């Protein structure tokens, strides 16, 4: 399974040597450079904040806050990561700040999404292969894509956030622990339980023995 900190360096169209030139223009206060920065990065940052916040209004507000925060910090940006990666981290933080400021509701337990075992420790429902082994073949079906999104959305928030930050945004365990103010052990436990709950939900309709 691919892991590691390189994941958030996915191409966004704003990397490579152009970064240095753009940064130079931004630092000179070039209005056109600011517009390029915003137009190029907004779509992906919005996708990230939408996933975390699940509210279009909050997602847009978080992106705006992220850019305002980035503009303020531009002089301190060292250029040791891509601008897009730096903005991504700021947007994740802005979204999580918003999540924390929301009125807390008691979280649903993840237990109902977890697999069952017999008293002797065997699987209560014997695992069987899924209908199609290749992710690409499965994802050609819109219904599968919808089921995957819904399964992620059904995870209790504290588990969903860890899954999104580790497996989707591909932040390191230590970074996620710092952002969420929990131990690295808690991040690992939540990630594993979130993945098990995701697998369990997908198993219900992807099992070969389900018509």
């Amino acid at each position, binding site marked *: *399974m691919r*892991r590691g900190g390189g994941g958030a360096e*996915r191409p966004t*169209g704003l990397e490579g040597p152009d970064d240095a030139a753009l940064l130079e223009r931004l630092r000179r206060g070039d*209005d056109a450079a*600011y*517009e390029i920065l*915003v*137009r*190029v990065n*907004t*779509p*992906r940052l*919005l*996708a*990230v904040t939408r*996933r975390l916040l699940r509210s279009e209004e909050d997602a*847009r507000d978080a*992106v*705006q806050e992220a*850019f*305002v925060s980035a*503009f*303020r910090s531009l002089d301190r940006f060292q250029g040791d990561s891509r601008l897009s990666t730096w903005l991504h981290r700021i947007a994740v933080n802005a979204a999580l700040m918003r999540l924390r400021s929301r009125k807390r509701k008691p979280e649903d337990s993840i237990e109902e999404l977890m*697999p069952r*075992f017999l008293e*002797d*420790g*065997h*699987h209560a429902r*014997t*695992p*069987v*292969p*899924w209908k199609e*082994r290749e*992710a*690409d073949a*499965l*994802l050609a079906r819109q219904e*599968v*894509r919808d089921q*995957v*999104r819904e*399964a*992620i959305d059904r995870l209790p928030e504290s588990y969903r956030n860890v*899954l*999104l930050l580790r*497996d*989707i945004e591909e932040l390191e365990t230590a970074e996620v622990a710092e952002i969420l103010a929990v131990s690295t052990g808690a991040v*690992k436990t939540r*990630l*594993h339980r979130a*993945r*098990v709950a*995701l*697998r369990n939900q*997908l*198993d219900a309709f*992807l099992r070969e023995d389900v018509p």
Partner: protein
Amino acid sequence: MTCREMVEFLMAWLDGELPEDQRAAFEQHLALCPPCEVYLETYKEAVRLGRKVCHDEDRDAVAEAPDELVQAILAARGRPGA
């Protein structure tokens, strides 16, 4: 090791973080338990599917930067404190 314990230790095993004795017990169980072997594959597949669906959303989002949001961000830059 039981199937329940195999599921419990799965991520630590994938991440190479199980102590030697537990790793040996885990791998012995996996070698002798076809259902757990299937479980391992579908666990990895679930992670891949989740990642792929979300990353495809990112790719599809590239064309879309709501103009009113872009304008609001650029306007905020000009405000004191921004």
